[in-house]
């Protein structure tokens, strides 16, 4: 009975988001513009930042801490994984702060606040597409073959966006009442940076421990980016991981919707 009510309310919530899609589009354009276009070189910094990070890691693991043997050249291996993590990290942070960012609207106009995390996600997606294009160029220049599996990146991107939607509905609403949320996220993401196969490979982990690493949904996404860009492995080769990923994403979405709906009436009183 209760589950059925949750289900109906959840569907209605998502339907309302769909009905607001034009507003989401309009706000996304503006959001992207203020963030990256209004300040001089804004966009270049946003693109340079992950590339600089990649260069540092590449330098460290090629010249200082050597002894890594990956199927493809290590810098490319690193690049493919890092951009997935980087997009997730950046979007999680910006969408979590989204509602307080748009606080000037919350207590002045009655509107669907739930679209704001989505606006932030889509705004970061635009940037991510540009970075993906640059990465594609780097791969081609390094002699990597262009395969049909490159298109699979869209599947993983959709999966990541789906996961982020649920998580950020949860975090963006809770953070209004509980500011420490931002610090907790920063720490979790820093831990995940090392516990996700970004600069190491899953095959180097002993079998009995690997199962714990696979509980991290980023494991699926980072490996998926590599499978698509470097190895040409379709996602249905990882049946269990795929099933697990979608189960956890749905769980986050459910929790996100319920928590957001519960807290929404009080937004104007706290922002």
């Amino acid at each position, binding site marked *: 009975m209760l589950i059925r009510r949750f289900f109906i309310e959840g569907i209605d919530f998502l339907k309302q988001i769909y009905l607001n899609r034009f507003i989401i589009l309009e706000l996304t354009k503006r959001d992207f513009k203020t963030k990256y276009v209004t300040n001089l070189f804004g966009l270049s910094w946003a693109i340079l930042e992950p590339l600089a990070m990649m260069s540092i890691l590449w330098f460290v693991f090629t010249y200082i801490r050597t002894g890594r043997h990956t199927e493809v050249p290590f810098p490319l291996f690193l690049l493919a994984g890092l951009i997935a993590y980087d997009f997730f990290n950046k979007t999680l942070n910006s969408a979590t702060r989204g509602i307080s960012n748009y606080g*000037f609207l919350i207590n*002045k*106009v009655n509107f669907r606040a739930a679209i704001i995390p989505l606006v932030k996600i889509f705004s970061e997606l635009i940037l991510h597409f540009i970075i993906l294009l640059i990465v594609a160029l780097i791969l081609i220049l390094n002699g990597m073959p262009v395969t049909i599996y490159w298109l699979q990146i869209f599947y993983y991107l959709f999966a990541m966006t789906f996961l982020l939607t649920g998580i950020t509905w949860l975090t963006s609403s809770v953070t209004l009442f509980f500011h420490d949320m931002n610090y907790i996220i920063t720490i979790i993401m820093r831990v995940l940076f090392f516990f996700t196969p970004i600069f190491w490979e899953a095959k180097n982990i002993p079998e009995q421990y690997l199962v714990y690493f696979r509980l991290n949904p980023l494991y699926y996404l980072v490996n998926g980016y590599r499978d698509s860009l470097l190895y040409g492995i379709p996602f249905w080769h990882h049946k269990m991981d795929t099933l697990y990923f979608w189960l956890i994403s749905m769980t986050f979405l459910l929790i996100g919707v319920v928590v957001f709906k519960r807290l929404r009436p009080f937004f104007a*009183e706290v922002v």
Partner: protein
Amino acid sequence: MSKPAVIEINNVSKRFKLFNNKKDQALEALFPFIHRKHKNFFAIRDFSLEVNEGDILGIIGRNGSGKSTLMKLVAGVIQPTTGTVTVKGNLVPLLELGSGFHREFTGYENIYFYTAVLGYPKKKVLEKTKEIIEFADIGDFIHQPLKNYSSGMKARLAFAVSVNIDPDILILDEVLSVGDSVFKEKSFEKIKEFFDNGKTILFVSHSMDSIKKLCNRAILIDKGKLIMDADPEQVIEKYNALYPGKNIKALITDLD
């Protein structure tokens, strides 16, 4: 002859829970069965009111009497603790200055941003853009970010957008008080035009002259309760009787 009610406020109370910290507030919102420590403050109490189509309703009360809370309830920005608020038609709220405008966007961009948030399609707004800019009459500042605006300019733009997108119901919470006399004159004209077209306006102001001039009905609020609902003249009289301020002459003699 009575016109249909467009706003119905039914036995509304708004309780603000005053928490010592936000963590308690979040926990209580998520788990309503846990009652944590909080103090209750009723900003609106057992409030019932019907506003009919075509009313220009003046709302009078001292600072902290609950006027703005009432406007926020009607605008749907906050939810009543008990009772119901029903609004029929397109409502555009103008709550405080620069309401809903983005500081970093230019005035021009804000026109589209704000109307998009209110749910107006861009095409419809494009047709009105020229009128809006002309009405706001802030010159080249229309292409400057909002953070460079004076409070008068913000009020001009906000008012220009809100009236020109042609809402059925308009809430004006102390927005005209910062405008200069020329703009005030122009705004009054526009409000009268609204009245002629049978639109509804909720007009919050401390300027008794404005209320006398514009409204066909007024209410007096004190401590979140409705004290009086009558002609503007009578309500203002009551207000002055309730809160007899010292007049200027007396003040000057006091200072001497």
